[in-house]
């Protein structure tokens, strides 16, 4: 009954569903109307719901998140598209100073149920400033949720949950996966939880923790390791804020070894928070150093050098071996 969808199609399906279910859901962003978004995530929505519910924005990245704050305090549920995460920086002031704290600064009088969507990460031969992953900076802002799907079905269920959530959610879409694969998605309106990791693969020898596009390399590495008789558990964090350390700790308690994989620069990435929690609550379980395979602490290069910069399956496998061989 489900359909085989790509991740970007799953996003579109969830948006369409949410707009059908709730008149208060409006979509806004640059080129989301007639064009259907630069990645076509909003394709067809303007035709179906009109330009009063699918609003093209002028190039005003600071304004339109603020606009969403005003819409949401007045009862709408805006879903805001940023064309690339690299252009999301101007939104941080509104996210940190207003969206994330309107509820608490008014002690619940005004609230901001809104979703910010942005494609993120590298790997699509895009121009300068189009490959950033600074999810860690956003996840550091109290009062937000930050969610990253790793597959079409996850995108569908998590985006529905994000739109229905009574608080602001930043929803980051790994653009490298937008059209990378199809998956069966049942458009049944069932949301996924926004506070839970997903275990993509069970294993006993080590735990790989990752999210977004890097699930591909983690799963490939796990496959590879399986060939060597090593059983790796792969956890898709999915919601990086709030962070479900319970699932991760439970896994590491069993395996004793952990490799964290993400595209963002190593220093201060979300991997740091996970490793820090392991160094605290999980210390006694650790049989080997917590290893991070990440983007380097350098500017993501233009695409000729990109393959050197982002985690590869090989780097993940190597890290896994190092962790496993640790005495």
């Amino acid at each position, binding site marked *: 009954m489900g359909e085989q969808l790509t991740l970007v199609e799953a996003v579109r399906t969830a948006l369409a569903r949410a707009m059908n279910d709730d008149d208060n859901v409006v979509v806004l962003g640059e080129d989301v109307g007639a064009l259907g978004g630069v990645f076509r995530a909003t394709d067809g929505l303007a035709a179906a719901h009109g330009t009063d519910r699918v609003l093209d924005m002028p190039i005003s990245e600071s304004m339109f998140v*603020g606009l969403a704050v*005003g819409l949401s*305090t007045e009862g709408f549920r*805006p879903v805001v598209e940023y064309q690339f995460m690299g252009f999301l920086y101007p939104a941080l002031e509104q996210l940190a*100073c207003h969206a994330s704290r309107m509820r608490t*600064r*008014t*002690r619940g009088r005004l609230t901001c149920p809104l979703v910010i969507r942005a494609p993120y990460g590298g790997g699509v031969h895009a121009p300068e400033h189009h490959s950033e992953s600074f999810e860690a900076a956003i996840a550091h802002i109290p009062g937000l949720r930050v969610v990253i799907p790793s597959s079409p079905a996850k995108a569908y269920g998590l985006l529905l949950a994000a739109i229905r959530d009574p608080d602001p959610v930043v929803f980051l879409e790994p653009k490298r996966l937008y059209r990378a694969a199809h998956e069966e998605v049942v458009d049944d309106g069932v949301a996924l939880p926004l*506070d839970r990791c997903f275990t993509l693969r069970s294993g006993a020898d080590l735990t790989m923790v990752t999210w977004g596009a890097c699930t591909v390399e983690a799963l490939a590495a796990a496959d590879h390791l399986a060939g060597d008789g090593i059983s790796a558990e792969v956890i898709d964090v999915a919601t990086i804020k*709030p962070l479900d350390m319970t699932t991760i700790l439970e896994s590491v308690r069993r395996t004793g070894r952990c490799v964290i994989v993400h595209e963002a620069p190593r220093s201060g990435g979300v991997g740091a928070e996970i490793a820090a929690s392991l160094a605290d609550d999980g210390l006694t379980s650790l049989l080997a150093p917590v290893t991070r395979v990440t983007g380097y602490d350098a500017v993501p290069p233009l695409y000729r050098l990109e393959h050197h910069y982002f985690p590869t399956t090989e780097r993940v496998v190597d890290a896994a071996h190092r962790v496993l061989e640790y005495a």
Partner: protein
Amino acid sequence: MHEDVGSVAVDGARVDAPSHASESRPSALGADELVRMYRAMVLTRTFDAKAVALQRTGRSGTFASSLGQEAVAVGIGSAMGADDLLVPSFREQGAQFMRGVEPAELFSFWGGDERGSDFAAQRRDFPIGIPIGTHVAHAVGAALAMQLRGEPRVAVCVFGDGATSRGDVYESMNYAGIRRLPVVFVVNNNQWAISVPRARQSAAATLAQKATACGFDGVQVDGNDVLAVRSVVGDAIERARRGGGPMLVEALTYRLADHTTADDASRYRPDDEVSAQWRNDPVARLRGRLVHAGVWGRDREEQLLAECAAVIEAAVEEYEARRPESAAAIFDSLYAVLPVAYAAQRAELIQRGETDG
């Protein structure tokens, strides 16, 4: 337009000082309404003086007085309908009081208590906005909500002369122009942004003409003339309500006090500039008008001062009597439902809160 009320439409680079004061024409408002406005101005001034005093005596934090600018806020407050939406900066206490915000609430806000933004009788208006200019997009978003729902409401957003330099203010006004949203922007041009005078904030001859960049009209009004403000802002609101789109109103006034209680304006502006501006005191001006109209005199003035003092005293008592929130409040309205990930932190806070009081 509005020639009878001390305003001048600003078209592009032309500059005209607002010339016709409202005093030169009879007011359409009844004496009761004038007195209501006068009371709001006096209450505001009383509140401001007390808030400064509380800060000076360590009973409150930093505070921003609206001394000298009461006509802007009260003009706005009296022009707005109950269902309209006020999105204020931090010197609009005069408007807020008229819209049901309690003096005790604002004492709480400046006194470091979030409950001061949980207005008991005004559930929709925005709280005081501290990061300059960032609230303007909220007003535009709310106006978009009103337009999309076809509601006959208007958002009124107030900001300072300094705020007009913020890019997001421009972005917000530009979008309001595109959709002709029901929003009125009011610049409280009090001539100073902390130590930076109006002339060094922008080379634009008027701030009203900034609307030109966004495709709608800007107008200057004498911001010390509460009736002029009320009239110009009121007309802009009604025009917006009828679908006429946004308007930018530049109210020309003067910041008679220090920027905030943390400021010392004598470092950057001469005292005699300030003294000279006292001649335009908007409170005295409306009082003069009331006296001239024969509806005001020493008795009523004394009565009013006493009444306002009592109201503010009571508010201070209420503010100071309020028990502080418990530590758990830090988490209790952070999310609709606190994620389990933070439950342990909340528990720790409560446990510590009990031990250290």
